[in-house]
């Protein structure tokens, strides 16, 4: 088993220590800056479906990069959130790299010295939470090891943020290593259909049930999938 990279490892140790999403965002961004070869980081969250708002930025450049994208409605983060795909740009000066967001690329070149940008969607299946954005003045990609680390960290960060969103200040709801098991996602789908709610709300209800019954979420998911447990709007 390959060891998690420094950023992911530090993030895993964070579990249970942060009370709200802006503290968590701060922790994630800071860990990225110290653990990777980048100059700044920011996390923006998706609110009300389409709009994004910056939750935390490590410096004014990071904040500016977010603001520019929101104002222009284009950029690697917007692309990453829309496509559900990481956007890793090693050099903005390369025409092929910035072809999807030319206005943003020009604005960045005019107003900053940033050349490298890495936008990682924070997502959990169809639930898109937001984006983790990293930047560097010096052009160049992330090393293979750092790329692996940051992708795993984004994955872990998604689980932690979703934990805060669907529980009561508790991000310790799911072992990140188990977060890809099909059952929990299948159960999410079944419950959202049973209740006529969003995937996030379905997850919140399953967690509340698991907590009330003192059971593991994975067990509840299994019962939902095997139809031993059905959620209804009347359930408290």
């Amino acid at each position, binding site marked *: 088993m390959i060891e998690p990279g420094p950023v992911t490892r530090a993030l895993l140790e964070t579990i249970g220590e942060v009370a709200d999403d802006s503290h968590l965002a701060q922790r994630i961004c800071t860990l990225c800056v110290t653990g990777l070869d980048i100059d700044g980081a920011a996390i923006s969250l998706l609110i009300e479906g389409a709009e994004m708002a910056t939750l935390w930025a490590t410096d004014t450049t990071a904040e500016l990069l977010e603001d520019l994208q929101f104002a222009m409605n284009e950029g690697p983060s917007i692309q990453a959130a829309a496509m559900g795909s990481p956007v890793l740009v090693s050099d903005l000066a390369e025409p092929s790299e910035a072809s999807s967001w030319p206005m943003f690329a020009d604005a960045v070149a005019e107003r900053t010295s940033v050349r490298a940008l890495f936008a990682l969607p924070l997502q959990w299946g169809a639930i898109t939470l937001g984006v983790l954005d990293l930047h560097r003045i010096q052009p160049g990609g992330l090393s293979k090891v750092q790329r692996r680390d940051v992708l795993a960290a984004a994955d872990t960060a998604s689980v932690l943020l979703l934990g805060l969103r669907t529980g009561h200040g508790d991000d310790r709801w799911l072992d990140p290593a188990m977060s890809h098991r099909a059952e929990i996602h299948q159960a999410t789908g079944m419950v959202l259909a049973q209740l006529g709610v969003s*995937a996030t709300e379905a997850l919140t209800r399953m967690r509340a049930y698991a907590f009330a019954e003192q059971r593991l979420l994975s067990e509840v998911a299994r019962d939902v999938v095997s139809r031993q447990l059905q959620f209804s709007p009347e359930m408290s």
Partner: protein
Amino acid sequence: MSQPKDDREQLGRAFVELADTLVDDYDVVDLLDRLVGHSVELLHADAAGIVLVDAHQQLRVLAASSEDAELMELMQLQNDEGPCLDCYRSVAQISVADLAEEKQRWPRFVEAVAQQGVFRAVHALPLRLRGQAIGALNLFSAQPGALPPAALALGQALADVATIGILQERAIRRAETLSEQLQTALNSRLVIEQAKGVIRQHSNLTMDSAFDRLRRYARARNLRLSQVARDIVEGRLDPNALTSALMRNNRT
């Protein structure tokens, strides 16, 4: 016993379909799903699956010939030990003609397969790229027996097509693209699992049939599998539309 002529026709059909898929705007999970189907037919296997490695270095199932939980479990298990794990690590084909003889090699895996009592032979072919593997194609057979060299070569060719499909060949040069593509494909798979749940709830089907509905709807309309799945989960597409579409198709 299969007829050589049938095999050639099947191979031709598979080739045409895969080539067709690759030139259009396609969905990686859909491509792998088709490939798995062709692998089963062309290599006369009883089941097949494709696993890809994620950012946590875990092998995850991207496509399988059946959504049966037991098959999934056999592939998932191999994160700890098994022919698939060895194949991925060594970037080499691992062929097991009779699992009963490999208890020493992979005790837990062999035990799990024996418990299920379905498969006797397993073959794992690496999805290889520049000396490394990004995953593997797993083949399972109910009968013990080796795969003849021609079949292994064909299997490897199918695995290579899978790799190319994931990377969209012209972008292979960019290491970033590989990471981007893998992450996207892996998350797409989760969206599909969520959609299966929604469909199952609405129509009381098994997970396998639920996936089948989804896939048929997407293909009939030339839509991206993961987009249809996302539309279902986000409420933009009524799951009942999948059923009526199916019935309409059956009547034609």
